[in-house]
C-alpha cells in the first residue's frame, strides 16, 4: 500500500474492491449471499435501537440496571444482543448529576457494535478522536452540551477489546412513559455521551 493510490479517481477503490471480492468468491472464502446477509445485519438488525432498549430497560428496572453496570455483555444478551464487533466485554458507564461520560477511540474507531451498530463518520474522523481526550468540554459545547464545571467529565478511550456504552440520565417529566416509549427518546449520540436525552422525542 504505502499511499500509492492517494490521488486515484473515485471509481478506483470501487473497482479494486469488486476485484478482490470476486477473487475471494472464486477461492471459496466469500460468496455473494454472505455479503448480502452481513450487510443486512448491519443495516437492519444492529443499531442504536438496540442500545436504546437496553437504556430504557435500565431506567425502568433497577435490578436490570445493576446487572448492566456489573456485566454489560451478559445484560445485553438478556435482550438478545451480542456477537462480533463488541468484544466479549461491554462496560456501561452511568451519567449522574455530577458525572458525565464520553466514549472515544483515539487509536482506531472501537465502538460497541452490538448495541449501537456501525459508528457514524464523525466518530471515526481525526477531529473527534484527537480532541475528545484533550478538550472534552470544548468538544461537548460544540455538540450543544454545556456542562457546568461541577460536573466531572470522564472520557473512555477504548484502546482494547472492551467497549463502552453510556447510560444517560433519564430525563425529568418521563414518569408516565413506558419502556417502549422511553426507548424512543434515547439517541445514539446520548449513548456515546455527546448529548443528553430529552423528554421530547428526537428526530430520527
Amino acid at each position, binding site marked *: 500500500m504505502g499511499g500509492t493510490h492517494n490521488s486515484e479517481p473515485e471509481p478506483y477503490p470501487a473497482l479494486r474492491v469488486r476485484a478482490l471480492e470476486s477473487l475471494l468468491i472464486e477461492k471459496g472464502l466469500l460468496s455473494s449471499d454472505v455479503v448480502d446477509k452481513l450487510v443486512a*445485519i448491519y443495516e437492519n438488525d444492529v443499531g442504536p435501537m438496540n442500545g436504546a432498549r437496553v437504556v430504557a430497560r435500565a431506567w425502568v428496572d433497577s435490578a436490570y440496571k445493576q446487572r448492566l453496570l456489573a456485566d454489560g455483555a451478559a445484560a445485553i444478551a438478556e435482550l438478545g444482543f451480542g456477537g462480533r464487533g463488541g468484544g466479549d466485554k461491554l462496560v456501561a458507564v452511568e451519567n449522574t448529576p455530577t458525572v458525565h461520560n464520553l466514549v472515544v477511540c483515539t487509536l482506531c474507531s472501537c465502538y460497541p457494535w452490538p448495541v449501537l451498530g456501525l459508528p457514524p463518520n464523525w466518530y471515526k474522523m481525526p477531529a473527534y478522536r484527537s480532541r475528545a481526550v484533550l478538550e472534552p468540554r470544548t468538544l461537548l459545547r460544540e455538540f450543544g452540551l454545556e456542562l457546568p464545571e461541577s460536573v466531572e467529565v470522564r472520557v473512555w478511550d477504548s484502546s482494547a477489546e472492551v467497549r463502552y456504552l453510556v447510560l444517560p440520565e433519564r430525563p425529568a417529566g418521563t414518569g408516565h412513559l413506558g419502556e417502549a416509549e422511553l426507548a424512543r427518546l434515547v439517541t445514539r449520540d446520548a449513548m456515546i455521551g455527546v448529548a443528553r436525552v430529552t423528554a421530547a422525542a428526537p428526530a430520527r
Partner: protein
Amino acid sequence: MNGVHDLGGMQGFGPVAREPNEPVFHADWEKRVLAMNVAAMTQRLYNVDEFRHGIERMGAAHYLASGYYEHWFAAVETLLIEKGVVKRIELDVRTAALGANPAAHPRRDDPALSARLLHAVRAGSAAKSEAAPAPRFRAGDRVLTRNTHPAGHTRLPRYARGRHGAIERFHGVYTLPDAHAHGRGRQPQPLYSVRFEGRELWGESAEPGAWVYLDLWESYLEPA
C-alpha cells in the same frame, strides 16, 4: 508505532463535521469491504490486531486523506496479499479486467458457507478473558505507564506514556495486541481500566475536572 493514527491530543483538525441523517453506508463498495473483512477475520485469515496494524502501516498522508472503509480496504488488501491468500498481480489483473468489462464476474451464492459464517458472526469471536496469569494490581493502586516507543503495534497511546494514573478496575486477562499483531502468539495479560487526571496528561492545557480512562495491559504499567 508513533503513527498519525495515534490521534489523541493532536490539534489542527478543526471542528467535528457531522452529517444529518447519515446513512449506514455511503457507497456500495463500503458494504463489500465490511463483508470481506468480517468474513476474512471470521475465517481467521488474519486477526484483529494484525488488521489494526495493517491500517497503521498505511502511508501517513493516505491515512489522513482517506476514510474508514478505505482504511479497512488498505489493511484487507495488504494482509490478504501478505498471507498469500491472493497475489498482488492477480488483483491488478482482475481490477483491469473489471474496468474493461464491468459485467464480468457476476454474483455467486454459497449457502453452506453463508450459514457457517453467519453463525460465527452472530456468536461473536472476539478475544475472551482467560484465567491466568493473576493480576498484579488492584483497584486503587497507583501506576506509572512506561515511556516506550515500539516500532510495531501497541495500544498504549503516545499521550499516556510516562504518566501516573490509578487502577480503576480489572477487566480480565486478554490477548496482548503488541504480540498478536506480529505473529508472536496471544501472550495473554491482565487488562485494566486506568484513570488519569487531565492535568497529568496535558499539564496546564488540561480542562478542569476532566479524567481520561484507558484500557491498558499489565506490561504497560509499573507500580508508582
